[in-house]
């Protein structure tokens, strides 16, 4: 039921140019919004679509916009989270490189919907090419009069601006991102106040993901009801997934929410490398709790994944086959979380490093029953609201979920100083 949404036009040459984008119907949504709709009508249309945030939190987009106070006298901002840095996730880069105008148009529509005039795209510093393409796209939109003081001849000024990050995973956390945008060390804020009340530069702000906003023009053009025909009963629409790791065809794919991981991994991504078998996969970025091979028929339904204790997250599916060791993989991810901890709250700052030191001992064949216990304690100490933001939880989930599903591998390493992957596990 229904075709692609985000990638609908991706086969078109020069889609990153305004001329090609507009020929297909690009900017007709923004035109419609500013010339014939009210802010509330835009929010209502997106509400009908059922669109939820694609950065990982699944929060309903229309509801997020409606939280921004309508009667606020000063500026209000849309901030676009283009700081994609979740291990395994590359879909925002893919969207921006293929269709930068879709994001620019979506960000402008979102600004209108919250009664604001500027959207700021916070893009990670390593994304040189997407940055250049967005800069050109914004310039083109200004030259055409689609952005600026009088977009499409109307009086509701709209602008989209760019801000480059400089390398910090934590900036993907929305309040850390806002701190960074304000020129500070990117450390998450305590909430409340929430960004909708006090966000960028102290003003009401809605922070949206690249994919979320890139979907919005399509919803305005085709109607929220049309979008809602796709997906499951509660998790509507399509989404991007990035498949990486041990598959034949790693890549970015648009899926209808509700297809199974087997469909994505074995059909879209071409299945496993010759002679190998699936061992484990991360269903939604490295921060999503792992699922073992036996759960390959799990649906991508967002609520179903939550019920399993994991999440669709940012759509990054990391596939690991039987030539790799789960303990080594988890150790690698813990090094990442420890390195990227901003240091503001103690459980995350200390817990991550405890885990790294413990994994180091285990992989040096110095593990024992003690290390198994330490990892369990550390995993617990990182979770359940003990940390200021989700980074600590995610680190805990990696330990907890790999230990739960692959306790035998942990026991091999800690108690018998062996690895069942043996010589095949040259890396990871």
């Amino acid at each position, binding site marked *: 039921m229904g075709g692609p949404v985000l990638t609908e036009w*991706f086969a078109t040459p020069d889609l990153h140019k305004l001329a090609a984008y507009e020929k297909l119907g690009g900017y007709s949504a923004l035109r419609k919004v500013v010339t014939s709709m009210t802010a509330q009508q835009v929010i209502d249309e997106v509400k009908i679509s059922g669109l939820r945030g694609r950065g990982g939190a699944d929060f309903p987009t229309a509801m997020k916009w409606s939280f921004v106070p309508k009667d606020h006298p000063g500026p209000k901002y849309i901030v676009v989270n283009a700081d994609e840095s979740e291990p395994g996730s590359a879909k925002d880069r893919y969207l921006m490189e293929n269709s930068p105008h879709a994001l620019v148009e979506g960000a402008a529509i979102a600004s209108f919907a919250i009664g604001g005039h500027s959207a700021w795209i916070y893009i990670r510093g*390593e994304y040189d090419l997407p940055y250049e393409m967005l800069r050109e796209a914004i310039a083109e939109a200004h030259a055409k009069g689609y952005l600026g003081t009088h977009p499409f001849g109307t009086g509701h000024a709209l602008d989209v601006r760019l801000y480059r990050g*400089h390398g910090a995973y934590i900036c993907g956390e929305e309040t850390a991102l806002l701190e960074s945008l304000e020129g500070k060390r990117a450390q998450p804020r305590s909430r409340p106040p929430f960004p909708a009340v006090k966000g960028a530069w102290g003003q009401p702000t809605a922070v949206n993901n690249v994919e979320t906003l890139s979907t919005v023009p399509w919803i305005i053009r085709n109607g929220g009801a049309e979008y809602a025909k796709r997906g499951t009963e509660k998790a509507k629409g399509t989404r991007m997934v990035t498949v990486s*790791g041990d598959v034949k065809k790693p890549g*970015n794919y*648009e899926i209808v929410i509700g297809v199974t991981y087997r469909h994505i991994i074995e059909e879209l991504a071409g299945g496993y490398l010759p002679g190998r078998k699936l061992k484990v996969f991360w269903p939604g970025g490295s921060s999503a709790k792992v699922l073992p091979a036996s759960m390959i028929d799990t649906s991508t339904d967002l609520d179903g994944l939550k019920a399993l204790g994991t999440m669709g997250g940012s759509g990054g599916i990391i596939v690991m086959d039987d030539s790799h060791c789960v303990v080594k993989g988890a150790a690698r991810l813990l090094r990442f979380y420890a390195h990227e901890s901003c240091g503001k709250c103690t459980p995350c700052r200390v817990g991550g490093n405890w885990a790294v030191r413990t994994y180091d001992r285990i992989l040096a064949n110095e593990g024992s029953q003690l290390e198994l216990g330490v990892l369990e304690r550390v995993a617990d100490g990182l979770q359940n609201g003990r940390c200021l933001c989700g980074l600590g939880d995610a680190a805990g989930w990696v330990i907890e979920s790999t230990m739960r599903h692959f306790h035998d591998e942990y026991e091999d390493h800690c108690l018998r100083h062996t690895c069942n992957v043996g010589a095949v596990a040259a890396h990871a």
Partner: protein
Amino acid sequence: MSALSPHLLEEIKALPANYPQPRSAVMPALDLAQEELGYLTPEAMSEVAVALQLDPGYVEGVATFYTLFHLQPVGKHRFYVCTNLSCTLRGAEEIVDHLRGAIGVREAGEVSGDGLFSYEEVECMGACEYAPMCRIDHRYHYDLTAAKIDQLVAERKSPSPARPTPLPPHPAGLRPATFPTSGEATPPVKKTRKKKGV
């Protein structure tokens, strides 16, 4: 004699006007300073602080937080090699081993004898479908092999200006390359079995 050129300091002083609050100019300013000097010296950070009317300690605090700011000398060309999980599963560690030999350094952060190269192991750069990958001179390089590393190094060692410009003025032709192994231009959205009841 200042560390930063007078022209650059003027440029930095003009930055705050671009933002709702002037403090947001600190990272773009550090970026300009690093672009000019290669890395951020204490003098450069102090000058940025004075130009933006900020405390030097504050500016240094920002600079030390972010991976892309360098407070030590670096090679003229810096390899940022992803060694996060997706890249490691596809051989990133072997790529790093090879790179060390190719540029003649023992560890991350060390500058090669000719001053041309240094490397860092970095966290996920968001191109997992092309693992293993690296970034050098503001460009991503995908599906790395030892031979590709050798080529990237050789291109930068040779005195001829054959090296590609940091960014293509026209990014057309990019799209087909986004599916390196499948050869498809567009991922088809397939209609398949949904969760029961839908």
